């Protein structure tokens, strides 16, 4: 596992749509299991990508063991809701009343983002869950954050519920959920981005929002699909016209990557790079390459401890 994430019980992988969160999450999960840690990887109510990225079989709404130390789940709101009520209200008659009574279901719609709360709650629950022997059921939980809507709204839901509902079981759950999220000893946040102007702007904003609004602690920023290229200027001029535009374009992309990485370094997080890989299909072996790049890319000394 990456040094800065080695102690985390919950690793949350965030970033805007299309930056490669699922790929990074899969790479981290494989590395974690390989290291000997019981690992759970979670998707949140999405079309499954992990089956293709991990190539260890289907990922479903119930937790399934994919390999010796790796489990996976695609968390669905209705199932998470049912599990939540079973657990919180602790007896079936009450739980059934809530999920089956359509009038009650109607009321529950007014509790803001209740679906989001129970899905996030399931992740956090598994991140602190103990087995019968007093050991953690999962030594590491990796959450592949969804990209729909505002990227960070999911993490703000516990506070919204606390503010709206105030007292009672929901507020109690929301409180410990928020507390675990902001506890740097429990939760580490990884920001994934592309090394281009707008994605970097958005990552800087996201990092600020995580700190200031959510009181969470990003540890690592991963620049995905980095271009590297060295081509001396003097040779550029001698290239035939038909190929020159391609070299110029690649050079420009590499320059943009370098500038982007430099801007990300100013965030004070550990910066890691994954090179641009054109692989089709993008499956397990590509994910392994991503891990090699992440792991081999030793970060320079950063300003943080």
């Amino acid at each position, binding site marked *: 596992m990456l040094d800065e994430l080695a102690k985390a019980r919950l690793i949350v992988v965030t970033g805007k749509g299309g930056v490669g969160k699922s790929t990074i999450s899969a790479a981290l999960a494989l590395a974690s299991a390989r290291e000997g840690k019981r690992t759970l990887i979670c998707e949140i109510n999405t079309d499954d990508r992990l089956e293709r990225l991990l190539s260890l079989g289907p990922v479903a709404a119930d937790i399934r063991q994919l390999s010796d130390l790796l489990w996976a789940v695609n968390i669905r709101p209705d199932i998470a809701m049912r599990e939540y009520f079973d657990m919180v209200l602790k007896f079936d008659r009450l739980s059934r009343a809530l999920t089956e009574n359509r009038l009650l279901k109607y009321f529950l719609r007014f509790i803001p983002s209740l679906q989001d709360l129970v899905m996030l709650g399931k992740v956090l629950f598994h991140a602190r869950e103990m087995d019968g022997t007093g050991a953690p059921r999962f030594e590491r939980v990796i959450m592949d954050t969804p990209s729909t809507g505002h990227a960070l709204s999911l993490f703000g839901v516990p506070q919204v519920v606390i503010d709206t509902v105030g*007292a009672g079981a929901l*507020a109690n759950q929301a409180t410990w959920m928020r507390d675990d999220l902001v506890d740097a000893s429990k939760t580490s946040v990884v920001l994934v981005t592309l090394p281009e*102007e707008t994605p970097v702007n958005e990552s800087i904003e996201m990092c600020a929002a995580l700190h200031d609004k959510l009181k969470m602690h990003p540890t690592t920023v991963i620049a995905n699909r980095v271009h590297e290229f060295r081509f001396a200027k003097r040779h550029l001029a001698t290239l035939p016209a038909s190929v020159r535009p391609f070299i110029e374009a*690649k050079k420009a992309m590499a320059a943009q990557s370098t500038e982007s990485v430099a801007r990300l370094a100013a965030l004070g997080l550990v910066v890691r790079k994954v090179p641009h890989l054109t692989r089709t299909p993008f499956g397990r072996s590509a994910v392994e390459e991503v891990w090699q790049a992440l792991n081999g890319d030793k970060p320079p000394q950063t300003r943080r401890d």
Partner: protein
Amino acid sequence: MTGAQASSPPSALIAVGSGGVGKTSVAASLALASALAGRSSLVLTIDPARRLADALGIGALAQSEVRIPDEAFTAAGLTPRAPMSAMMLDVRGTWDELVRRVVPPAVRERIFNSRFYLSLSTALAGSQEYIAMEKLGELMAARPGTLMVLDTPPSMHAVDFLEAPQRILDFFDHDAARALFAPARLAGRFGQKVVELGSAVAGKALSRLAGAEVIRELMDFIATMSSLGAAFSVRARATHAMFADPNTKFVVVAGTDEDRCDEALGMVSYLRDHHMHLAGLVVNGVQAAVPALAVECAASLRGEIGDQVRATIREVQTQAAIDAHLVARFAENALGVRVVTVPRLDTDIHDLGTLYQLARHLGPAFGVG
């Protein structure tokens, strides 16, 4: 006259698609194409990237309409033949406006002050989408000759967008609310109301979840809102009518990410199944093939430089092949919907010049330029 121009010109284009595919850029470039061709346009966005927002001049101004100044056009070497405007949707502000329009003054304050209203207007699933459609309807009624282009919140499923009005309506006009709030109830006897829910157990469960006081407030809020059900219902019907109008057309925007291909195709078939009008499917960011001349030339180069050039060209060729395969997949599975490809740009959209790089491909294909 192309096939696109032969059918009726759209009065509204609604761009739907997953996050990160360039939906906002596509929406803005359609508005630009329209203005360049001589028809006034307005692009309504929800959460634009800062650089695009700056390029359009909307920046931090929520809800005010901003006309793109002539200087922005001339700086990009473009000549608009009609005005183009941009607007950033203010979800909370539009809810407030809606409540003011629909709710009698006596009841308004209670709603505005309710803790549930604060979260409902922003956190409720479908809220953004509903408000976007409200705003669109308002704008279309006010300016019939202008092309409205709506950028929608990113989602995996077009269903989120299309079902939003109905979901919001269910909220206010639900059988459950009507059953609960028969005339006898207004005395506010909490315990009695809860018993009506079916069992004392259920009432206890609710109170355990959220505390009795909160439940009481919620009941009051629901009672207030459900009395407005009829008024919201009228508006929701108008929105439905807007969707059904053949001049309201959907544009599904997809990227070149293989993963999200199914999401985009899912949106196409969902829209089709629900008899919505599809203007086309845009595949954004397609890498063009490397010309044969460049490949031959690279083959002839010597030394380390030759190796570097060949490696670079190979990378581009591989990407172009991947993208071509994806475009073919879209074409095969798009149920006859026009597939329009937009080339990969070297930079992000930061001014009208770069926006025009998209507009010149999209305008003709969508009958807006």
